[in-house]
């Protein structure tokens, strides 16, 4: 089976000359289909840069990155946009919903960019909101929703194009613990349904929901901690954070 993520020697350098900083320095990561992997590290460890490159929001200065078997480094801007829209689903720390649009319209957005018909988009968006338990809030704008609700809308949005990979960057960073728990439960349910998830966090409790934890320091993975088999991950992890 093709690995969802096969990243080797990714390097990303900011600035130039004397002041240049390597945010990523030889980052290697392989993620198999159906895995739930947490990338953990302190702030400044390069995990956000890793997320941006794994999500095709940024390009590495060096190294190769195969996403679902395809070499991202060889893609043009149009193809990258297509990959972001259809192969990857994003969940951001700050939700990143479009404030002028209702929850339902936000969830529809990636489908409209992917050329799904309006009617089909409406149907799938409604189903996705139902899955995260927010069908009763579909017409509300982000400002009328709590942080936890906004993040669940964002999770619904990340799934509607049935992406190969779900990338979550500190998804609970802006949430109170109850809301965080709800969002993590949703992510676990999604993983149980077979979706591959990469979760980026600095929080050990959050990372413990994953089946495998990759520790980052100074722009590279320094240790991989396979805590539990992926199938049993949910039960053990929730026990650990209670």
């Amino acid at each position: 089976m093709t690995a969802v993520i096969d990243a080797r020697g990714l390097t990303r350098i900011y600035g130039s000359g004397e002041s240049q900083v390597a945010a990523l320095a030889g980052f290697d990561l392989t993620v198999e289909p159906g895995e739930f992997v947490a990338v953990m590290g302190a702030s400044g460890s390069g995990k956000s840069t890793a997320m941006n490159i794994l999500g095709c929001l940024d390009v590495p200065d060096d190294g190769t990155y195969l996403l679902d078997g395809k070499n991202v480094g060889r893609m043009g801007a149009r193809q990258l946009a297509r990959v972001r829209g259809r192969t990857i689903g994003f969940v951001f720390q700050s939700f990143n919903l479009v404030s002028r649009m209702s929850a339902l319209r936000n969830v529809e957005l990636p489908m409209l960019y992917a050329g799904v018909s309006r009617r089909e988009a409406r149907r799938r968006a409604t189903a996705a909101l139902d899955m995260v338990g927010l069908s009763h809030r579909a017409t509300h704008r982000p400002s009328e929703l709590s942080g936890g609700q906004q993040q669940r809308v964002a999770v619904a949005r990340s799934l509607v194009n049935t992406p190969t990979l779900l990338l979550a960057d500190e998804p609970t960073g802006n949430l109170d613990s109850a809301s965080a728990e709800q969002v993590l439960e949703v992510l676990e349910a999604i993983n149980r349904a077979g979706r591959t998830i990469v979760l980026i966090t600095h929080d050990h409790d959050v990372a413990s929901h994953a089946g495998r934890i990759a520790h980052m320091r100074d722009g590279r993975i320094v240790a991989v901690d396979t805590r539990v088999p992926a199938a049993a991950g949910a039960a053990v992890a929730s026990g650990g954070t209670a």
Partner: protein
Amino acid sequence: MSPWEVLLSALSGIGGNVTRAALTLLGVLIGVGSVILLLGVGSGATANVAEQIEGLGSNTITVSPGFSRGATRFQDLTLDAAEALQAPDAAPDIAEVVPQVSTSATVAHGTVSTSATVTGTTANYFTVTNSPVAIGTPFRDEDNAAARKVAVIGASLAEDLFDQADPVGQTITVGTTPFTVYGVLHAKDTAGGSSANSGIVIPLTRAQRSLTGYTALSSITLQAASAESIDAAAAQAELVVAESLGVTTEDATFTVTTQSQLLEASTSVGSTLSAMLAAIAAISLVVGGIGVTNIMLVTVSERTREIGIRKALGATGAAISAQFILEATLLSLAGGALGVAAALGASRFEIMGTRPVISAGSVVLAAGVSVAIGVFFGGYPAIRASLLTPVAALRHD
């Protein structure tokens, strides 16, 4: 993303800040409206002048003294010259000759007095110069022959002197001489400042005897036998008048002007005027366009984060720039449409003494320009937006 979806997101973008959209729209509205309206004023003014020139009479030619040039001595137009023009063998294409003297004099009736232009001329003046008498009768050849103290007065002068009363048969004083009013001229369209309405027409012989003395004519109006013979008649007039004044045509200071030359001159003045007005209006259109750019730049920087989100969700650069260009185009198109409506509304009123004549061409032009403004002035911010890298856009607050 389907065009319909792009349109919807552009509309929702505009709806996001209604006040700002309205102000931007107002800029384009004023630009487009003023271009259409001022072009209309230009062509209205041109049409007015053309109408007045046609109102001077049909197939007419004017001989005027002109100006002295170089070493050539200035030549007065004489009554002899006017008489020579009447000779059928020398000037076969000239049908009518209307010598005129004119001066300014005080005209009074009872306690009312005013200053008016007095024209001394012959009886054929009324038909040749297209100045029919509305009330009463014109004076006749025998009045001129006998130098009778009779007058035909302009419509507005009649109103000034007599108010609502019937002026026919009344006596008015011109200078110091009493005149009997024979009739009142038909009111002419005064737009452009025709003095015919406030003037007074008396027999040439009487004018010379009482007011101007036996000096030079101020002009001679000729009527050609037909529209086709105007140029021939003008050529004959030049030869005959030069011969009568004892000069060669090269040395002549007088000028012979046909109606079509007047029309040409006034049309060229009119189009210069139109072009100037349009140029001024175009400046406001450019300012409106810069307003569109400005607002789109603000919108793009305000929505940088949204652009990042959309890119993360699979939007291509083309989809992003299409949305912003469409947004700018919708704004300027709406502004253009309202500008057309405003110009059409304003054209119902007189502007600078002229009813603007709005041509379909100028409307199409302005509408086209407003769309072009949207694409052109909205294009730069839109392309800037589309080139943002997703990660940079997402990091933007």
